[in-house]
């Protein structure tokens, strides 16, 4: 972590257990390290926490207003001149509304643009279905050239954001909303390796592969299963694309089945990515903990997760059903 300008305590405190804020904190570090970095806002200055960046690097900040299609096009144009744009946006809008700009202007044209997509999943629960992003992973991972990352906590979000400096192409970074995302790794200084799953619990009976907010639930599920003498391996699959094939295939070969867990619809997310791989390479019994094929009702994020079966209890049930 050479050249770090912020002390670990500072960025951790300011991130307040929210990945969206950790992204903003990491941008400050990127601003120091990479003079070509620029930040774009679509009226999202507080969403990602970039007011400090604006103060420090005003000439490398552009506000574009609530105009996501324009923001992606502008980011692409900036990237062609050698700059490194970071677009701070709402996950539901930057993916669905500007999908064509994301596909053509940055994925097809293969430009180094990083999208920081806050308020993903049902983190804006009370905002209702218009503001939930439950298909963004399916959209983004269907694009060639695109790297898709889902940090599980602030440590991972901070380091994954720094890792984008070395990614030669577009990146979709899926971030949370105003909900707590507690640390999932006992080693809070663990390095971030793009495309490499992190094994958080060993186990030979069954494997839970989770991302984002569901990683913490996978750990709780694993702890609960342990009490019943079931050893569930837990993999934090922070990179959805490129997928860590080796980790998935090893889990399929070494354990009795795979449960995937994510805050995303069944269609096309982490579970879909793993099912696609296993269907071809090693057909394996699976269960998918994910949002059903419907729009969520209004409610706080926690109760919504429980209502739609995205919970530690649901993961326990899914694991047990594989072992029967």
């Amino acid at each position, binding site marked *: 972590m050479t050249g770090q300008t912020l002390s670990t305590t500072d960025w951790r405190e300011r991130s307040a257990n929210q990945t969206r804020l950790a992204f903003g904190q990491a941008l400050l570090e990127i601003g120091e390290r990479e003079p070509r970095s620029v930040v774009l806002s679509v009226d999202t200055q507080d969403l990602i926490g970039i007011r400090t960046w604006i103060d420090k690097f005003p000439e490398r900040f552009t506000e574009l207003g609530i105009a996501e299609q*324009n923001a992606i096009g502008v980011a*692409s144009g900036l990237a062609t001149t050698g700059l490194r744009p970071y677009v701070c946006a709402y996950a539901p809008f930057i993916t669905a509304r500007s999908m064509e700009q994301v596909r053509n202007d940055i994925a097809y044209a293969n430009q180094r643009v990083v999208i920081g997509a806050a308020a993903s999943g049902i983190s804006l629960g009370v905002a209702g279905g218009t503001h939930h992003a439950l298909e963004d992973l399916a959209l983004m991972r269907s694009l060639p050239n695109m790297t898709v990352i889902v940090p599980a906590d602030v440590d991972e979000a901070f380091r994954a954001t720094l890792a984008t400096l070395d990614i030669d192409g577009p990146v979709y970074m899926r971030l949370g909303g105003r909900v707590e995302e507690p640390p999932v790794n006992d080693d809070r200084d663990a390095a971030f390796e793009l495309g490499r799953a992190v094994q958080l619990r060993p186990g030979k009976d069954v494997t839970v592969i989770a991302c984002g907010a569901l990683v913490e639930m996978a750990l709780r599920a694993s702890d609960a299963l342990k009490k019943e003498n079931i050893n569930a391996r837990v993999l934090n699959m922070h990179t959805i694309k490129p997928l860590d094939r080796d980790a998935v295939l090893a889990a399929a070969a070494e354990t009795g089945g795979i449960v995937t867990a994510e805050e995303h619809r069944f269609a096309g997310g982490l579970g879909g990515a793993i099912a696609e791989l296993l269907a071809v390479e090693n057909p394996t019994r699976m269960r998918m903990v994910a949002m059903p094929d419907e729009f969520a009702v209004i409610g706080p994020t926690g109760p919504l997760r429980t209502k739609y079966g995205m919970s530690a209890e649901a993961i326990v049930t899914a694991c047990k059903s594989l072992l029967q």
Partner: protein
Amino acid sequence: MSETKEARRIRLETEARKLRRNVWRALRAGGGGHAGGSSSAADILAVLYFHRMRLRPTEPEWPDRDRFVLSKGHANAALGAVLAQAGFIDDALIDRFYQFESPFGMHPDIKVPGVEMCTGALGHGLAIAMGMAMGARIQKKGFHTFVMLGDAELHEGSNWEAAMAAAHYKLDNLTAIVDYNKIGQSGPISELIELDPLADKWRAFGWEVREIDGHDIGEVVDTLDALPVGKDRPSAIVAHTVKGKGVSFAENTYRWHSNNVDDDVHAKAISELGDT
């Protein structure tokens, strides 16, 4: 000895005529294509590439080059022709239009030397060009960014997001040229969704506007030479043009927005365009 105005006009008109011939040549190779919008854009492209823009065809990635984005990407036959004439790409590529695995297809591909962006999905180019202009400003570079927009393309709302933002940021290093041939894919623009008063729309968004005859080489030269036309404002040039310009049967009809071209049609078009 510097070139006289008259000599320059003749040189640019010759390039434009050659460009139209190359467009029809590409269309014959491809069996068809967008004759209408490629031909209406030809004179402006000739002035940009053979007079106005600072370019290095043998060094297409030269960082200080002026930028051109063909937002109306379906006129790629014209872009490919002008890039070949300017020396960015091999002339033989014109005969590979639409061919299997050719880099020269219906729409621009960033992998082709001289092509700045993959365009043709409409309503993208202005935002991209705005990003290039901002990139120049942030890096204190002096290059100018041009973007050519189709008229029917202006029905896409994303253009107006970019128009509003570019004016807000006073990007006087950005010029949008509307190839206003007034005919879309399905018929006259006025019958699809009316754009007029088009110049007023740009003015209302904060742009400095010039209306010109997009086929009068002298007027195109003078207008482009005078850029930026307004201090601290992006420039919009509403260029009144004729769809299919130069070939009688293709002029002013939506049927030649895109159409099939065989040897016979090609020969007729070429005979009307005349020699270079």
